[in-house]
């Protein structure tokens, strides 16, 4: 398969790389660009651990072809902290509330939460659970994660 040159815009930086049409964004991020914060677990679009934002909307990067991400603004977990290294409110809250166990689902949970709170800054617990329903935590630490999202919503309103 021929490689194609694509220009990916990730976390505000521009990357010129050669990819094959059968390469998925999740694998390109991890293997070619060393952005290993994004995880792949089920690799079938189900579990949510590979969630990244395309133009602000959450997608499964394990089902998104890298060639299709061209021309879109890609945000990964690495893009959340500010330039001076300060964590995003969602990341702070996940730490403060102990919403991380093994950590494998965390990047996906955080990205989903970020896009959700951008749209719905004052969610109910029910809405939070609905928003996270497509992200699976096999440590089953959902209670703390919901608490962290509630906490992040409060922090982001200040």
């Amino acid at each position: 398969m021929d490689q194609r040159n694509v220009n990916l815009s990730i976390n505000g930086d521009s990357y010129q790389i050669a990819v094959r049409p059968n390469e998925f964004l999740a694998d390109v991020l991890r293997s070619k660009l060393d952005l290993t914060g994004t995880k792949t677990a089920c690799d079938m679009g189900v579990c949510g651990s590979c969630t990244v934002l395309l133009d602000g909307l959450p997608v499964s990067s394990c089902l998104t072809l890298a060639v299709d991400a061209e021309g879109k603004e890609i945000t990964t977990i690495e893009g959340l902290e500010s330039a001076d290294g300060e964590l995003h409110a969602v990341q702070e809250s996940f730490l403060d509330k102990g919403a991380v166990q093994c950590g494998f689902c965390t990047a996906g949970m955080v990205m989903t939460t970020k896009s959700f709170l951008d749209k719905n800054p004052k969610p109910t617990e029910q809405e939070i659970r609905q928003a996270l329903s497509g992200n699976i935590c096999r440590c089953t630490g959902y209670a703390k994660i919901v608490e962290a999202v509630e906490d992040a919503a409060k922090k982001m309103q200040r």
Partner: protein
Amino acid sequence: MQSFEYFEAQSLEEVVEALVSGEEVRVLAGGCGILLLMKQNLYFPRALVNIKKISGLKYIEQDNGTVRIGTLATHNEVKGTLLVAEKLPLLSEALSYVATNRIRNMATIGGTLAHADPTSDAAPALLALEARVVVTGSQGEREIELAAFFKDYFETVLEPGEVLKEIIVPLPPETAKGFYTRFEVRKAMDKAMPGVAVLIDLEEDKKTIRSVRIGLSGVGNCCLRLEEAEQFLAGKEDHPDIRQKIGDIVKATIDPVEEYHFTADYKKQIAAVFLQRVFAEAYSRASSSS
């Protein structure tokens, strides 16, 4: 993942050209269906034609008593459009069940119909709304009733060289009300078994059924319209006996496959129960609407 030849089309003409260029050339839109099958080594197309870079296929617009939806509109784009939320709430309701928010941001409405997953949530609603699809191919364009579009398990009546271009949904009468739900054990990533959509329009007395449309998924090789039950219900009022009867009709019509966890009899039974529940809710919505 497996290798394949890859084309990026800039127009539907280029798609048709690529599709007729050889065997096993398939259309790639949102990719949530076909790429998943390829990842699991269940399907091996020789080539994929990516249609996502074609501009002008994402519209959702009202036109002459219908809503026209471009094939590349995503589930969330369709669901989130005010036009659909106001005029086709049954479709919005059904789309909110699909997979997860992530997949709804990726998967296209044309793709999900062409993929012909028998456990679709979108298809029952679109069947009940009497949607049609517009396909384009080397012989030109043609319109197909959605009820005649699904042929078998993951199979449609699309000819080689044809691509789905547009979905046309006739606007139901303002008085018609619908309801969609499905049997599910999880909130995300579940499959309809069954998914049932019912759209009911009542006479002025708010009791007698003027017309009813029923779409069904998840209990057979294709999504289908339950025309026998529709005809039976026309002109009748809600009554436990008629609910019993439509349950009997659905059991006699569908032919579900036996699975490890679910026998065919169980699937028939649950299809009847869900049809009765969805009918009752749609009827109640229609009779209480002003």
